[in-house]
């Protein structure tokens, strides 16, 4: 029988639509403005007492709040607010009441009903242009990192030759290659094998000019890109750590291209504060652990940094062996027995300082301190009675580790006796964070005020509504009953599009909304193709049932070709484009896929239900009477 779907096909259409409705639904529930309270240090537990201090501060300021909640492990608490305008005031009040040591972040708490979130349904995240916030693009100065490494090789070669008593001239040429010049060929060969042994990653070249025998050591392309990679990832980790201090609920820190880092901080307005924290320098200090009998004036006590050793303290000498500037690399690794360790490389000066300090102190312990610039807030009364928050900087020093010195150390040494690979990678990460990173600069910065974000949403929704209304009106007038089918399919296309994007965890941006609007316009194309075919078939004198059947069949390959080529363009947009272009490409390609389903399978199901399996004299598809 023509134009009848088997039951399972109807069920599939029904199933897809139900799934679409469920996963698109969370976007209907507007999120509540909220404050999120976390401890600055991860050991801080948020309890009822802290929460009630916060809520009392809000009540005093007359700010309405509800549904306060502390999460299961007591790491953070959420307070929902009635009005978004009061969010900033509320943040300042709570910060004032709780004091330093707590991070009060602006947040948007989802109001998704629990049965929906139990199914994994989540609303779409809003991009910065819709939510307001700051977008930074940072560039890592990879050149500076490379130069530092060249400097390191120069000094390392000089030192190695001196130690082996090979006399020669070592210098750096304009390309940053190390050139060592000798009087005799045998000296050159000796030096060459020495360098090759110490630095297998360098490519060595022999140069003969008259009486001079030289060897030239250059970094390979691979080493160069490794240095660049290292410099970027080092900055990436430090920035990730610092962003958490800013009190942003959902920050985004992402590498982009070869040497860029994108940071997006929704809800933040104060760019100066954000830049200060992002550009902050951390440092390291290596000091010996003080002897028991050392006088109090020569030693200082420090706490451990990690949460599982919270409260434990150690006495360190006041003298500093080296600081983080001397550390050129730290990498988590394994020894011959497969036990985790951390390999540390120092520059040449650091190496000699380290060996001098450790030579006579074998079997003593050495502490590594992590230094961070922090800010204490003080509230000062102005002459006019208003209060201003003043930030006073101070350095916080905490102990990372204090291993026993097993032998005299040089420029390369390792920290062993770590419990797990997790511990070694964490330690390496902190050491790298404290080491001098490649300098970064801000190459792009965008601040979107919250009112503009809200307006963008309003305008975006409005243009989708009006656009949709115009298309609906036109389709129904032009294609009658079939137009109604197309319109119903179009609405479900929008639902599926939203559901898909929510499921993918895609971020909705203004260009993304533009993509949705464009999809609305173009999605009907498949139906227009099919309906014009059906009209043609009727004109050619086919029966209505035959016309429907062959209309859908004939249009299919055209629809596929047209959509696949558009999809090619969308994929290229996604691959090459950045930021806003990516957002547009995502909605466009998802829209193409969902529209093919709703326009072909969806409308066919409706047409079959309505016309299929019965005698039909004419189709209500509009157009000239045949």
């Amino acid at each position, binding site marked *: 029988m023509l134009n009848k779907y088997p039951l399972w096909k109807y069920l599939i259409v029904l199933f897809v639509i139900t799934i679409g409705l469920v996963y698109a639904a969370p976007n209907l529930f507007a999120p509540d403005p909220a404050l999120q309270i976390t401890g600055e240090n991860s050991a801080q537990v948020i309890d009822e007492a802290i929460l009630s201090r916060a809520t009392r501060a809000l009540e005093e300021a007359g700010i309405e709040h509800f549904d306060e909640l502390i999460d299961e492990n007591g790491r953070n608490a959420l307070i929902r607010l009635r009005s978004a305008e009061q969010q900033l005031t509320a943040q300042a009040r709570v910060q004032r009441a709780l004091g330093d040591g707590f991070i009060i972040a602006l947040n948007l708490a989802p109001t998704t009903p629990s049965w929906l979130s139990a199914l994994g349904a989540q609303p779409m995240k809003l991009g910065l242009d819709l939510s307001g916030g700051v977008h930074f693009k940072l560039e890592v100065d990879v050149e500076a990192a490379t130069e530092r490494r060249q400097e390191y090789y120069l000094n390392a070669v000089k030192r190695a030759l001196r130690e082996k008593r090979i006399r020669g001239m070592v210098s750096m040429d304009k390309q940053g290659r190390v050139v060592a010049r000798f009087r005799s060929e045998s000296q050159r060969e000796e030096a060459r094998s020495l360098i090759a042994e110490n630095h297998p990653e360098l490519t060595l070249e022999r140069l003969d000019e008259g009486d001079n025998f030289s060897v030239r050591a250059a970094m390979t392309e691979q080493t160069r890109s490794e240095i660049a990679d290292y410099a970027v990832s080092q900055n990436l980790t430090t920035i990730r750590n610092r962003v958490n201090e800013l009190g942003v609920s959902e920050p985004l820190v992402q590498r982009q291209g070869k040497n860029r880092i994108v940071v997006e901080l929704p809800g933040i307005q104060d760019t100066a504060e954000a830049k200060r924290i992002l550009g902050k320098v951390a440092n390291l200090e290596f000091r010996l652990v003080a002897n028991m009998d050392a006088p109090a004036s020569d030693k200082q006590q420090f706490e451990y940094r990690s949460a599982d050793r919270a409260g434990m303290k150690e006495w360190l000498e006041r003298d500093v062996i080296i600081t983080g500037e001397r550390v050129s690399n730290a990498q988590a690794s394994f020894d011959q027995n497969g036990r985790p360790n951390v390999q540390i490389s120092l520059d040449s000066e650091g190496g000699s300082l380290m060996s001098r300090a450790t030579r006579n102190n074998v079997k003593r312990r050495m502490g590594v301190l992590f230094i961070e610039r922090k800010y204490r807030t003080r509230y000062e009364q102005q002459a006019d009675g208003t209060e201003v928050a003043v930030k006073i900087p101070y350095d916080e020093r905490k102990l990372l580790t204090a291993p026993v010195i097993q032998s005299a150390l040089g420029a390369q040494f390792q920290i062993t006796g770590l419990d797990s690979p997790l511990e070694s990678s964490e330690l390496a990460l902190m050491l790298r964070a404290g080491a001098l990173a490649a300098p970064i600069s801000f190459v792009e910065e965008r601040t979107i005020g919250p009112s503009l974000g809200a307006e*963008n949403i309003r305008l975006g929704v409005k243009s989708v509504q009006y*656009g949709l209304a115009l298309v609906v009106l036109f389709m129904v007038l032009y294609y009658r009953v079939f137009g109604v089918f197309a319109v119903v399919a179009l609405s479900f296309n929008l639902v599926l599009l939203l559901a898909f994007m929510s499921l993918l965890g895609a971020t909705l941006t203004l260009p993304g909304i533009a993509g949705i609007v464009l999809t609305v316009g173009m999605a009907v194309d498949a139906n227009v193709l099919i309906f014009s075919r059906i009209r043609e078939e009727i004109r050619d004198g086919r029966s209505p049932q035959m016309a429907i059947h062959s209309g859908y069949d004939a249009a299919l390959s055209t629809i596929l070709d047209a959509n696949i080529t558009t999809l090619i363009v969308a994929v290229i947009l996604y691959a090459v484009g950045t930021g806003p272009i990516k957002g547009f490409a995502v909605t466009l390609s998802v829209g193409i896929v969902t529209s093919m389903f709703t326009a072909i399978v969806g409308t066919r199901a409706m047409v079959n239900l309505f016309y299929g399996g019965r005698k039909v004299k004419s189709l209500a598809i509009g157009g000239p009477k045949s």
Partner: protein
Amino acid sequence: MKIINFMGQRKLAMAFSAILLIVAIGSLVTKQLNWGLDFTGGTLVEVHYSETANLTEIRGLLEGGTFDGAIVVSFGSDQDVLIRLPQGHSDKSGPALVELLQDNFAGTVELRRIEFVGPQVGDELREQGGLAMLLALGLVMVYIAFRFQFKFAVGAVSGLVHDVIVTLGFFSVIGLEFDLTVLAALLAVIGYSLNDTIVVADRIRENFRKLRRSDPVEIINISLTETLSRTLVTSLTTLLVLISLAVFGGEMINGFALALIVGVAIGTYSSIYVSASTLLLLKVNKEDLMIPVKEGAEQEEVLP
């Protein structure tokens, strides 16, 4: 159905396209594009005044000082002001500018957005954009050559190049700002115009195979007439939503919507005239479109 003689006017259409292209390229060469902040670098500040903003006053305030060379325009309404600083100001000048404006205004000056783009980013972006466009055209050409035939690929791509150049030319002639969203719109135009071209090409191929007649002009005319209503309806629905976007979408999306409106309009025209005319120029014929497997079989039959 009455067959419309589209190809009868193809000389006229070609002349029209030629004029459009000459004007567009001429303007692109002499006037170039009004590159937006994304490409040039610099600083852009948008603020909202609680009362009507006095642009002359603001200009006077900024003149001569650290913000010399600032361009002040109103943005959407008379309370919204857009200020552009040329390349060379530091990334700190945006917030400083907002502060200065607030200090010199009795009401409130609300910060809407600050955008700072360093000089390194712009050039890269232009390169990337151009690359994306070429890549899109290249891949599309390969796909069509594979699915249809090489002559169709040339026809489609010449139509696309025509649309892109004319849309770019439109932006250049009017002096509209060319930013990242307009670039995205341009790539969407490629996608859209392609859609149209493929539908027409599909019908041309079908008719070459199905109809006994072999005059290419006639077959193309029949195909264009048959697809005309679909071409117009789809363009109309797309234009309807784009107009809605241009009218209600707000200032930030205006350039995007406008680029698409121009692109869709020109794309509709080009899929009828440019792509189809190119096919005729390349002397497309029945043999080009025979299904390869059958082609072999037929040849055997023809042999004496």
